[in-house]
């Protein structure tokens, strides 16, 4: 049976993969950035295919804008230098291949160690539930975007407290047996504040680096 959704997924995924390879092996910096744009747009279309509109649109807005700034910087900073065509040395190839293989290994490990993949009837049920969720496009019932937003701002998602099981009966000062209630304690609420902040600091580092590169280049080129 011809399933269009699977077909679309494999089409988009393979095109995205091809564009990613082209990003790496293209020597011209602007063309490479263009392939990067296609890779990121492909990722966002996978998000759209899975019904995650918000994440897809965020991906488009942030990464397309980011790539655009990259191109503007690439053109402005390297238009006359030797950077337009990047020659990669053998050592750089070796390092990047090692790093890439390590990342691939981590990803494969993550995929295979995830045991609870539904199969058979459970898979069909999960798919059905997913379709229903997608059709319920009412912002009041669908909480995806707000959930993610709350988690990113550190509010957390999930039950606030989990009661501990009651403690075993103990003797108080007078020697009577008493049963103390379980102490409420914080559970592992899901929130992404720390990773979010780390990513933003990382972006700041990149920004400072770009500014440093631009200034250093101008100083070397004389008082222009």
């Amino acid at each position, binding site marked *: *049976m*011809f*399933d*269009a*959704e699977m077909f*679309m997924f494999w089409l988009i995924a393979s095109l995205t993969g091809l564009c990613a390879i082209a990003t790496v092996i293209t020597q*011209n910096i*602007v*063309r490479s950035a*263009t392939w990067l*744009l296609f890779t990121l*747009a492909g990722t966002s279309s996978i998000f759209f295919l899975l019904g995650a*509109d*918000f994440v*897809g*649109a*965020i991906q*488009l*807005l942030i990464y*397309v*804008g980011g*790539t*655009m*700034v990259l*191109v*503007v910087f690439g*053109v*402005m900073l390297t238009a006359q230098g030797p950077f337009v065509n990047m020659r990669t040395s053998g050592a750089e190839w070796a390092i990047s291949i090692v790093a890439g293989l390590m990342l691939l290994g981590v990803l494969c490990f993550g995929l295979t160690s995830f045991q609870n993949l539904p199969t058979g009837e459970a898979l069909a049920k999960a798919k059905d539930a997913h379709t229903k969720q997608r059709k319920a*496009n009412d*912002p009041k019932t*669908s909480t995806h*975007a707000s959930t993610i937003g709350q988690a990113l701002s550190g509010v957390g998602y999930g039950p606030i407290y989990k009661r501990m099981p009651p403690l075993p009966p103990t003797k108080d000062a007078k020697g009577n047996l008493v049963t103390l209630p379980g102490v409420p304690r914080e559970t592992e609420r899901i929130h992404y504040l720390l990773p979010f902040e780390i990513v933003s600091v990382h972006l700041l580092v990149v920004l400072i680096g770009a500014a440093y590169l631009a200034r250093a280049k101008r100083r070397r080129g004389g008082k222009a």
Partner: protein
Amino acid sequence: MLERLSDFWSLNATYVLAIIAANLLIGFMLVHAIFSVWLERKVAGRIQDRLGPTRVGGKFGWLQTLADGMKLLVKEDSIPASADQFLFRLGPYIVLLGSFLAFIALPFGDGVIARDMNIGLFFMLAIMSSEVFGIILIGYGSGSKWSLFGGMREAAQMISYEIPMALCVLVPVVVAGSMNLSEVAKSQSGIWNWYIFHDPFTFCAFWTYFTCAMASCKRAPFDLAEAESELVAGFHTEYSGFRWLVIFMAEYGSMFAVSGIAVIMFLGGWSLGLPFELTDFFGTTLGLGFFGVVVGNVINVTVFIVKGWFLVFVMMWVRWTLPRLRIDQVMMMCLKYLIPIGCVLLAGVSVWVLFVPIILQQIVGWLLFILSLAGLGYMGFQLRTWVSAPPGAGMPGMWRMEGLPGYQGATKSV
């Protein structure tokens, strides 16, 4: 065979419908481009005291665009020797894609939408910002300094103007409490409930948004990216034939897209201004069922397109009336004026919705509505006197010339 067909349908109905919707949208974009180019030439002609196209297609030269299109199709498609061939060929299609994909989330009527998203507004803004990338590629890939300058100006301008545009669009979002374009449109039933009349902040946000929208469509007075007087033709200097056609189809498409956002967020969407939804009225109240919904939606879509075209017409009107700014003035206007205005409007509307008593909100809303109607009436009156005035009579905005030698004066005072 039939079973297989129905199986196929039940599995892939979404995709078949998607293909139909995409074709309808492409068709609309083409018709819109053809109509708007003709309208632009007519409007430009009238504003410059000419007739515009008159011959092709009998009356009003209404087939002029088709003739233009045919000319462009058979024109030589030249690529400069110094151009980056791949990027040069690719650029126009990215621009067109950015413009076309925005239409996916644009509702034309009650349920007449390709994909009804929670965050339709955000999606449209995000996808229209990717249009700039194509223009940068065009500018860089052409291998010409005019194109590169145009592309860079466009990049700076678009990235800057996205900020006030998004801020202004958030103002009605605060009032409506939703980013779903269909919901926002449905929550404004009755002309007095349109968000432009909701409070002073939304009223100002409409004009600020429209200014930013014009700038983001690179229309005059903000068309620095293609300033003929300095950059030959800016980013599309090296283009001819079909690719040039594609660039302009995208430009007219995004003009309608930003006007569509303005219509939905501020001007009641597809509503005729009546306090009930037409599809409900025909379908449920009159009991016509599905047929009634279709009739209602035909009216809705017509109203929406006419409203959108009216805003597109205003863009043309402004383009042919105002002189072009300088690039530093364009950037100053955005960074020094529009962004602070946008911030103030957003903060103001939040305070308004939260703290101002409902009765005051309603009084101010009605006052705005009545004042706007009065203003429109005054403008109409002025226009009428202007049209019927004898030659030499004082027109609105005309220089007073009494006392100048050779001035013959009005024969009749109006």
